[in-house]
């Protein structure tokens, strides 16, 4: 009985959290189309989510592309299929690695800071002050951040695609001595536009998930400085899990 109770409680908690999340998603969508529009704030958040994340995305995807080439070369060499290294690296980066890794890195960088920022505003009554000034926090804080996530994540992913494929090329050609022209041909040979689109569509969803989760965790912060810390951790953990979870289903469902 005790065990059942505990399991039950975990599920109730899970459903409550899910309900809150989707409730906030609904409010965010509703407020997106209501004036006044925070043009300046939208741009500021896009810089924060997009431009400021470029160095991290640069290093992550480039090295992933490089190590992918290294590993697949190793493996394919054993079955004399070295020619396919370029194709495998490109397919893996575009369809899967670039969208997911970019999303996870941006979650750590931006999702966490959004939770900390909004959480601090909660515990210092700044969210109440916003409301007292006839400004809905969802409109003023959530909407610009979520829009920035949806717009900027696909752009970062494109950058990641290019860098990953480029990193693979560097390793394949310079380190493993593959023929540059053959490697390039192999890279493009089996690619469809669909591979690019599927990665970009997924990353737009990830952008929504990581920003909204950061905002929601911050919004429901309670308990002072410690609460802000907890909200920040929870934002990163739950956003990362939701991203990996939806990644599977989106991939299965759409493509």
């Amino acid at each position, binding site marked *: 009985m005790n065990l059942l109770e505990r399991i039950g409680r975990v599920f109730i908690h899970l459903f409550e959290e899910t309900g809150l999340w989707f409730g906030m998603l609904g409010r965010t969508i509703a407020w997106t189309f*209501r004036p*006044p529009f925070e043009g300046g704030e939208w741009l500021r958040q896009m810089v924060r989510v997009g431009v400021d994340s470029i160095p991290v995305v640069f290093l992550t995807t480039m090295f992933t592309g490089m190590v992918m080439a290294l590993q697949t070369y190793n493996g394919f060499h054993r079955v004399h299929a070295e020619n396919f290294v370029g194709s495998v690296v490109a397919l893996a980066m575009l369809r899967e690695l670039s969208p997911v890794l970019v999303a996870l890195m941006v979650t750590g960088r931006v999702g966490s800071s959004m939770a900390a920022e909004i959480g601090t*505003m909660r515990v*210092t*009554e*700044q969210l*109440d*002050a*916003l*409301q*007292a*000034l*006839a*400004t*809905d926090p969802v409109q003023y804080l959530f909407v610009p951040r979520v829009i920035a996530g949806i717009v900027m994540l696909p752009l970062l992913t494109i950058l990641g695609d290019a860098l990953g494929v480029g990193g693979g090329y560097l390793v394949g050609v310079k380190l493993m001595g593959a023929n540059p022209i053959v490697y390039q041909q192999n890279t493009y040979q089996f690619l469809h536009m669909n591979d690019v689109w599927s990665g970009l569509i997924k990353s737009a969803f990830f952008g929504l998930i990581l920003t909204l989760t950061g905002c929601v965790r911050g919004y429901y912060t309670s308990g002072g400085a410690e609460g802000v810390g907890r909200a920040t951790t929870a934002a990163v953990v739950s956003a990362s899990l939701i991203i990996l979870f939806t990644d599977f289903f989106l991939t299965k469902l759409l493509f």
Partner: protein
Amino acid sequence: MATNTPMISLQHVDKTLGGRKVLDDMSIDVERGEALVIVGGSGVGKSVTLKHIIGLMKPDRGHIIIDGQDISTMRPVELNNFRRKFGMSFQEGALFDSMSVFENIAFPLRRHTKYTEQQIRERVDECLDLVHLPDVASKRPSELSGGMRRRVGFARAISLKPEILLFDEPTTGLDPVISDVIAELIVEMDRTLNTTTVTITHDMKVAFKIADRVAMLYKGQIVEEGTPEMFQQSKNPIVQQFIEGRAEGPLTE
């Protein structure tokens, strides 16, 4: 709207938070232009009362009528717009720390008026003058002292010329001299702006200075109310203990 109805009317308000009944069938009216001060110990529901008046919390039962309109049944968007009637000052000021003092006070003006940049600048200066704080517009909230932060909070609260001003513990954490300065400032703003004000505090000196009427909140209900003179002479042992600040009495039993 008829002018003889009260500006603020709380009717039989119940509120339970975290399993504890914070407000229990609480009722009180505030007349137009009146300065009401609600006093009471920590955790008796003073802040909760204030948050109900501005609609940051919804009552479990009962009604909150502001200027003839029931805000407890309003839709969120409607309520959001209705809040322009209010100016609220928070305990620690609750200034937006990502913005300068100027931007803090300009914030509601930019969002809710069609003022030009010039008009906004004038209105911000006007508000800072009203709280006697010149030359801080370009500072960050973190560079200000506690008393100054409170005053910037006042300036932000009055920038949209609200009809109702709410003060949440305006002097908590300030030294006695600055507390008195803040109390005088509230009296002065109340007079010059001709607003209805509700202040909550546990500082009796401040309460008597500001109030047209003092009300004491205890166990989620108003147990005593009256003019400062009447209140001071109250026979109610709860009130007497609180005014005198004694450790023994019905409050601590």
